[in-house]
């Protein structure tokens, strides 16, 4: 072994990447070579130094932001065409590539066959109401969002055409928050609509009706929304609500389990504010103790301690 060849071997030796024979030869050479022993010592120092260097820190805020944006992206993914195809394919279980390709070929073939064997127009039974286009005004047509067109064919009258399509129509509802139907739409939006911006706007409206049981339930649900901005707005609203067992339980749950440290801190403040007005609650104090002792975030621990001091000072 020549010394100039051994410089690379030192690094491989440090990482335990040398095969046994080469390792023995290397160690044998080291026994009689000062220069290579010094080189090895330097490689080992570099390795130790690099292992002592600080790890990049994953802050709770970065983690919360990443998880929240992934949640939103996965929500969109689940509503997309990929989800439909994936759901259908995965219903067969994990498929080997060749079987999946065979299934896809059959699907494409089936579509192709169906396209060439389109049924005659007059044998079709329309599943949706037939509308004469003159029944739609310009605004209606502008608000019509076509999802798919299933047929284009000559119409029954000479020079006419029949278009069968699936469409959504934009509708604008106006009403009062006194109307339970309006409230129901808003509550359903809060619980299930995919756009977090719309959910947040809905929260602003629902704020006006927190004494309504269904609205209250939706607001408590929003404390666990997938979007951190929606959760924060929900927290601010709950803070202004009339206290109850549900609000304390909801806030405690947020305080203990929200992935965002800022939200957990805001939940602590909200509970302190409630208790300053309503009097102490042992459940809350116990939860604050647990947080002060075990939360992984130092700011949350400090805030919990400060809250405990304040609340115990009131007793």
């Amino acid at each position, binding site marked *: 072994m020549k010394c100039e060849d051994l410089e690379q071997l030192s690094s491989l030796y440090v990482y335990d990447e040398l095969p046994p024979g080469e390792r023995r030869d290397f160690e044998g050479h080291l026994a009689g070579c000062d220069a290579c022993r010094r080189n090895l010592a330097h490689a080992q120092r570099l390795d130790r130094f690099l292992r002592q260097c600080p790890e990049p*820190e994953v802050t709770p805020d970065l983690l919360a932001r990443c998880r929240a944006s992934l949640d939103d992206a996965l929500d969109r993914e689940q509503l997309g065409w990929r989800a439909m195809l994936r759901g259908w394919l995965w219903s067969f279980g994990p498929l080997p590539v060749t079987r999946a390709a065979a299934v896809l070929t059959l699907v494409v073939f089936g579509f192709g066959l169906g396209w060439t064997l389109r049924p005659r127009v007059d044998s079709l039974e329309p599943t949706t109401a037939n509308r004469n286009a003159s029944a739609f005004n310009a605004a209606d047509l502008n608000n019509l969002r076509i999802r798919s067109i299933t047929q284009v064919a000559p119409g029954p009258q000479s020079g006419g055409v029949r278009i069968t399509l699936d469409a959504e129509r934009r509708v604008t509802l106006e009403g009062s928050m006194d109307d339970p139907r309006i409230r129901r739409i808003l509550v359903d939006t809060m619980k299930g609509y995919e756009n977090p911006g719309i959910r947040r706007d809905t929260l602003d409206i629902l704020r006006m009706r927190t004494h309504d049981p269904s609205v209250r339930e939706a607001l408590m649900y929003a404390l666990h929304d997938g979007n951190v901005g929606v959760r924060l707005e929900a927290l601010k609203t709950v803070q202004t609500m009339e206290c109850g067992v549900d609000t304390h339980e909801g806030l405690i749950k947020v305080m203990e389990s929200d992935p965002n440290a800022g939200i957990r801190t805001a939940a602590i403040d909200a509970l302190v504010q409630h208790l300053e007005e309503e009097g102490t609650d042992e459940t809350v104090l116990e939860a604050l103790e647990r947080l002060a002792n075990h939360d992984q975030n130092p700011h949350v621990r400090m805030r919990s301690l400060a809250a405990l001091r304040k609340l115990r000072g009131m007793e």
Partner: protein
Amino acid sequence: MDGTCLELASKAVIPDPAEGEVERSLIRRAQRGERAAFDTLVRRYDQEVLRMALRIVQSPEEVQDLYQEVFLKVYRSLGRFRLEARFSTWLYRVVMNVCLDHLRRQKARHEMQMPEIEESQPDLLHKLPDDRPVLNPERALEAQEIGSRLQLAMARLSPRERLVFELKHCQGMKLRDIGEMCGTSEEAAKNSLFRALQKLRTDLQDLV
């Protein structure tokens, strides 16, 4: 860091059979479309994924996009994952490919610049945990300087060198497996590692 890298390496060598079965069950449920199972799987690994990406890309803003890209790829291709394989290895391969693509795009846009030395280094060492037993300002400053010097040194590595170094030094993978993961040979991975160590040795010689 010493403990972290060695812990990861030791975990990779001696898997807990019960833990493995729990994970396989999660993967099966996620493959059937159960979102909660997929979310649990993500949370098992996402902090380590973020740390890996931060070591390679060194920017929290870019890392957020890469995080989403990694887990969306995993979500879309989980149906093809075979349960006999190790999920962590498969996941880290996705992370590496996403980071490598990102670094190559950056290089193509001539955005690979030497990061400036700042007084505070939010990317690598922006916060010392308050619960450390010794909060020594002098040591904090020293750690800060080491962090910024290391960041500079890592920025000098090519994308391939940075990845191979990350996989070898921090993840404890064998060079043969690294070569396979990067779509190259063990010999090429070895050369990349050696070049990376040479550059790091040159840049950090006064600190070592």
